[in-house]
């Protein structure tokens, strides 16, 4: 072996040993926030971490007489990193709570750690229905995709559409959405004429939109991840489908608040269902949006940000209830059934499933003060995750 290499190793090992081991202070409560801060899902990480910081800026860093310290870690969106970081945060930093989790596999990878170490895992972003079943210590403040899709199906049926084509991105959340929509829509008496799946990478919607045009449905239901929404609507309008009488109904991911203003006027009038809009008319939301935009150079908060904000609200409320006790079981018990008014409207934590119960709004894109917003028109109130609700019935 080369001596020069060995020397480099020696130096590194020496450095490793010299790292300070963080001291454990009883009057500090640590929260490990694991998010994809770099890589393809970086925008999720930035929205959530900015909202968490904002919550602390608005509500102070002390709760129940203890200081709350947030440690942000970047998992780059890779599940093995998430797991290692969660483990390290638990054993080295002695965090009382794990939070964040940008994608479903990342939340699932950390679940065994939460169970083993009895540490609550607050899922602030990931949206597959099964997540909360992976550990009794998981509590979710984001949403589940079926939760916003089933209302879309119900709304479509009520609006008089009989024949619908679904168009989703070909990966797990997209297939979840397709399934949830079809189940509800056919139960309401409609028919799904075609189920189209678009590749996740470099999507070109043109051939799929041609299929939609050929089927001549009353409406088309769309789910694509937030970055592709603008492209989809643009191609939809370019092919003249908006004038052909086919109603476009999407989930809110397509019209992400963070990006909608750059999509241009083509998205005007598009209907979508989601749990949060930056245009939600409430004093809580106005204060949240104003403070978020001020702190982040004018960037608008989206549904990821509100998940992070509410996650912190939940943690603070639970700590207040336990009077600063960080025992994992007590914290999760305190969180169960918790209800409060979030920027998105009234929400609560389902004591059975530890998943979020929230209003799902039907929105239309409109111009407000020269900017594009999803303006809420009507609401389905206190919607539970339909997948777990169906399981409970059986």
């Amino acid at each position, binding site marked *: 072996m*080369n001596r020069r*290499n*060995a020397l480099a190793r020696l130096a*590194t090992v020496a450095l490793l040993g010299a790292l300070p081991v963080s001291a454990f202070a009883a009057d500090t409560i640590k929260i490990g926030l694991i998010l994809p801060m770099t890589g393809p899902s970086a925008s999720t990480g930035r929205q959530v971490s900015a909202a968490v910081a904002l919550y602390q800026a608005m509500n102070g860093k002390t709760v129940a007489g203890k200081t709350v310290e947030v440690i942000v870690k970047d998992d780059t969106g*890779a599940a093995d990193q998430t797991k290692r970081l969660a483990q390290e945060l638990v054993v080295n930093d002695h965090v009382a709570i794990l939070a964040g989790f940008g994608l479903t596999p990342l939340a699932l990878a950390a679940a065994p750690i939460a169970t083993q170490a009895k540490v609550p895992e607050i899922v602030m972003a990931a949206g597959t229905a099964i997540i909360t079943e992976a550990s009794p210590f998981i509590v979710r403040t984001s949403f589940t995709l079926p939760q916003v899709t089933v209302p879309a199906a119900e709304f479509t049926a009520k609006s008089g559409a009989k024949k619908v084509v679904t168009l989703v991105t070909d990966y797990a959340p997209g297939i979840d959405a397709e399934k949830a929509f079809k189940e509800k829509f056919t139960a309401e008496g409609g028919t799904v004429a075609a189920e189209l799946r678009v590749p996740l990478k470099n999507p070109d919607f043109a051939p799929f939109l041609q299929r939609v045009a050929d089927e001549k449905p009353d409406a088309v239901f769309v789910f694509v991840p937030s970055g592709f929404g603008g492209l989809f609507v643009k191609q939809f309008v370019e092919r003249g489908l908006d004038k052909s009488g086919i109603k476009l109904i999407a989930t809110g991911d397509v019209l992400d608040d963070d990006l909608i203003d750059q999509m241009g006027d083509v998205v005007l009038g598009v209907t979508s269902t989601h749990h949060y809009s930056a245009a939600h008319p409430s004093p809580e939301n106005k204060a949240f949006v104003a403070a978020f935009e001020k702190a982040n150079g004018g960037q608008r908060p989206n549904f990821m940000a509100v998940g992070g904000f509410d996650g912190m609200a939940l943690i603070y409320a639970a700590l207040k209830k336990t009077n600063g006790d960080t025992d994992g079981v007590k914290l999760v018990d305190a969180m169960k059934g918790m209800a409060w008014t979030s920027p998105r409207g009234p929400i609560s934590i389902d004591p059975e499933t530890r998943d979020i119960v929230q209003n799902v709004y039907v929105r239309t894109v409109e111009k407000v003060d020269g900017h594009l917003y999803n303006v809420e028109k009507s609401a389905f109130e206190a919607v539970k995750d339909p997948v777990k609700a169906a399981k409970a019935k059986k």
Partner: protein
Amino acid sequence: MTMPLLPTSRADAVASAKAFLGAQSRVRPLEIAFWLLAFAALFVGRSHHLLLAEITILALFAVSLDLILGYAGIVSLGHAAFFGLGAYAAGILAQSGHGDPLSGLVVAAGVAAVAGFVSSFLVLRGADLTRLMITLGVASLLYEAANKMDWLTGGADGLQGILIGPLLGRFDFDLYGTTAFAYALGVLFVVMLALRVVVHSPFGHALRAIRDNRLRARAVGIPVERRLVAVYTLSAAIAGLAGALSCQTTAFVSLDVLDFHRSAEVLLVLVIGGSGRLYGAIVGAVVFRFAQDVLSAMTPQYWQFWVGLGLVILVLIGRDRLDDLGRAIVARILPARRSPEGTP
């Protein structure tokens, strides 16, 4: 180097060649010191065992790439294909109730080796640029296949319900990662011992001849294709081992094990540590992961900038100059002994 230029007789020539090769493959004190240190780390610094386990696995993966890149001159942008295959093989095996880590390791290496053997015939064709695209293509195909076959792989949600049994029937994988680190380090040690033999064998020398000049290697009678198929298969098997280790120590597999960023990352590790020297891969893995850990703790959003800046500086300075610096330091510490340069 140390070989006399004009041997007086045939016997002399053989003897001096033997001495030259023997000197190359001799176990050096620093090598022993390194392994002693690495194993000593098992007993101290428990708080870093998780990170060390991950570094060890990355090092093993980088070593496997070094074998084809540094020794045989095959550039690959899709080495994650074998890492991912190994991870999924071990994961699916554990999911179906066979949670013994060691047998999982063997199966994973076998699966990756078969895939490596089959795809090696594609890699033999064409020049470097073609190989880049072929390896990239094979990895992308596997990625999409894993995404589509969600009944087997769990698709985008990741493989659920992996239960890994205790190592050797006795040591459970603990929260601190001590078992994981010991396990990974043990595997890396065994692989490095084996590869030392391989790269210093006639087979290893033939590979280097092929790397330096394919045409000339063929002219002196080296069966180029057979050697390349063999080394590609071996490399795939080792990458599969690394993937299996990653799966078994984290008890989770998701699509990102096959993702392009993993192939790119391992190339980066070789750029940092230097290729064609086996231990360079380990140095690169230690430096890269350690830098990532420290930098991303300081700035979770912008750590990649600093890593990138470091790489630019590394390239500007040039590896040769760094090597010279290292050599000068070594010469100062150990003035009496001079080590032949080149291969480990």
